[in-house]
């Protein structure tokens, strides 16, 4: 059994070395943080080998929500498969549709009209805010604070109303389709959106006051589940988890797809303790950094949406007919910046209208794989903290 030397824990457990036990040795227990558990968001099962409160090994078992979406992808035309992409990461339906739509468009070579690009971009950013709100709320729940959850869902409710006015659905939209957007924006949509942004932005400052800089919350998350930058890149972590470890890598900035290069925004990155706006005990790559990156990303998304509303052109919202697109005998791999990380679609056509192979690379699939490396050596109460900060959605882990 690998010696679990706990080098990053400064507090009371520093010299608790496993090898030389006193005669009072607590008995090791194998515990199932089973598929049904309030701390695992969705049906993730973590088998913990614990010694008292200390975790020796935390092996995640997945596959409880496996719906073989990829096998179905090999039987459906692209425009029929879009609703399946919604159900993968059910908290960020728009971004999933966008990823698959871009993959098919680049494979077939469809040119998407300007207005559709802007609408897609606005809805993708709105969905990012909604998804980060859920992450912020449920992370408060994991730490035991019930109130932030209610506040975040109040704000998210308004975003869902906006989505409902545009595409009729609240969670599984199938709004972004191959070649553009399903139908045009309802009238007065943009000014209601502006009114919402003005209402929402001061609320984020309120969240920071309520939870982010709360002393107990900082003590529970600072210096817990630290992931170094090298590990983060080695385990192919992406999104806020990677940026929380200090690596400045955001697809919207580094390899801008669609029209992201026309907007001016920042990429928040995890910073060590003591820098401006970061509590003293925070280490780069711990739970607090990952959480704070998400909160700041919400503000950046508002900034992008405001610029997009100003530059919104007129024109058609769809590039043309969606049915029977002939897929060339070639393969394509496209990645976009999903709220949880880089969602990639590998599509291989074989000349017919149905793709030969569709492979979805879910960001949560890679992000959760590091749980064992990070989880062993911490305490039982830290597991929900780490899983919550990685913010996984089981739909896209199991596909």
């Amino acid at each position, binding site marked *: 059994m690998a010696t679990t030397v706990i080098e990053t824990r400064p507090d009371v457990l520093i*010299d*608790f*070395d496993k090898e*030389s*036990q*006193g*005669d*009072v*040795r*607590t*008995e090791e227990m194998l515990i199932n943080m089973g598929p049904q558990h309030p701390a695992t968001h969705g049906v993730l099962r973590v088998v913990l080998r614990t010694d*008292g409160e200390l975790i020796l090994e935390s092996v995640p078992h997945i596959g409880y929500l496996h719906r073989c979406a990829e096998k179905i992808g090999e039987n459906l035309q692209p425009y029929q498969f879009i609703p399946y992409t919604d159900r993968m990461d059910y908290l960020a339906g728009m971004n999933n549709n966008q990823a698959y739509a871009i993959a098919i468009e680049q494979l077939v070579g469809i040119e998407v009209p300007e207005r559709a690009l802007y609408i897609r971009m606005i809805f993708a950013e709105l969905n990012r805010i909604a998804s980060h709100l859920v992450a912020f709320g449920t992370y408060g729940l994991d730490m035991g604070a019930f109130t932030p959850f209610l506040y975040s869902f109040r704000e998210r409710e308004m975003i869902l109303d906006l989505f409902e006015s545009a595409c009729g659905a609240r969670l599984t939209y199938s709004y972004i389709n191959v070649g553009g957007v399903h139908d045009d924006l309802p009238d007065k949509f943009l000014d209601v959106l502006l009114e919402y942004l003005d209402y929402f932005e001061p609320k984020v400052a309120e969240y920071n006051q309520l939870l982010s800089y709360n002393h107990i919350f900082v003590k529970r998350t600072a210096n817990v589940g630290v992931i170094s930058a090298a590990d983060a890149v080695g385990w192919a972590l992406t999104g806020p988890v990677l940026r929380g470890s200090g690596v400045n890598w955001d697809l919207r900035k580094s390899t801008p797809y669609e029209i992201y290069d026309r907007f001016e925004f920042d990429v928040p990155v995890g910073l060590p303790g003591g820098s401006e706006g970061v509590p003293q005990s925070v280490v780069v790559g711990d739970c607090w950094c990952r959480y704070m990156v998400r909160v700041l990303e919400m503000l950046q998304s508002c900034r992008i949406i405001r610029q997009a509303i100003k530059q919104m052109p007129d024109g058609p919202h769809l590039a043309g007919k969606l049915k029977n697109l002939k897929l060339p005998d070639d393969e394509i791999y496209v990645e976009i910046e999903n709220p949880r990380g880089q969602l990639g679609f590998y599509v291989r056509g074989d000349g017919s209208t149905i793709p030969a192979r569709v492979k979805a690379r879910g960001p949560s699939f890679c992000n959760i794989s590091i749980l064992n490396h990070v989880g062993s050596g911490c305490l039982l109460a830290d597991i929900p903290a780490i899983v919550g900060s990685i913010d996984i959605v089981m739909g896209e882990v199991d596909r």
Partner: protein
Amino acid sequence: MKTLMRYDKTILAGLLLAAMACCSASAVAQDYPDPKERPERVVEGEAVPQDAYRSEVTPVVESVLFYIFGGALLLSAVGLCICRDVVRMATCLFFTLGSAAVLYLLLGAFFLGAIQLIVYAGGTLILLVFGVMLTNKSPWVRFDCKPAEMIAAAGVAIVLFFGLATMLTTTEWAQSTGEARSTTVAQFGKALLTTYLVPFEVASVMLLVVMIAAAYMARQE
């Protein structure tokens, strides 16, 4: 047994009420303060002895309570030895200590009864259960002793029984003269720090040594 288990709630609710009635009845020995004159504050000098303690309850009720809780004490002590499951043993120990505390209350020694509950039922027992949970003897282990041990234990028990019986019968106990038996807490405090100061300090030093030894033993090298 099945039906008994099904009506467990009603039975235990009855037990609950009985326990409350006994507690209030047993604590009845304290005289109901006469509302007119208040016991004035304890002056610096010698504490004014409160009016004589007398049992409001007729002796019949008091002896019934005594037998109930004395019986409970004996039964749970026997249960303590018989049970195999560690946690059931701890519960029997709890009932033993609890009924001992109630007996003190019956005798009017309220401070002692409360301290017994705090120190034993609240403190030592919890540490004992805590110790069981943390030692590597997994709590689901069962103590099943071999026949040889049984015989030895029986022998020791018989010897002890006769020793106690003779001691009980031969000594002549001081008859309770029924005069003021209830002492206020202030008198306790004064007695502890004046007449019994040395044993009090020795006990505290001994406890300190025990605590340091325990900390040393559990420390990881």
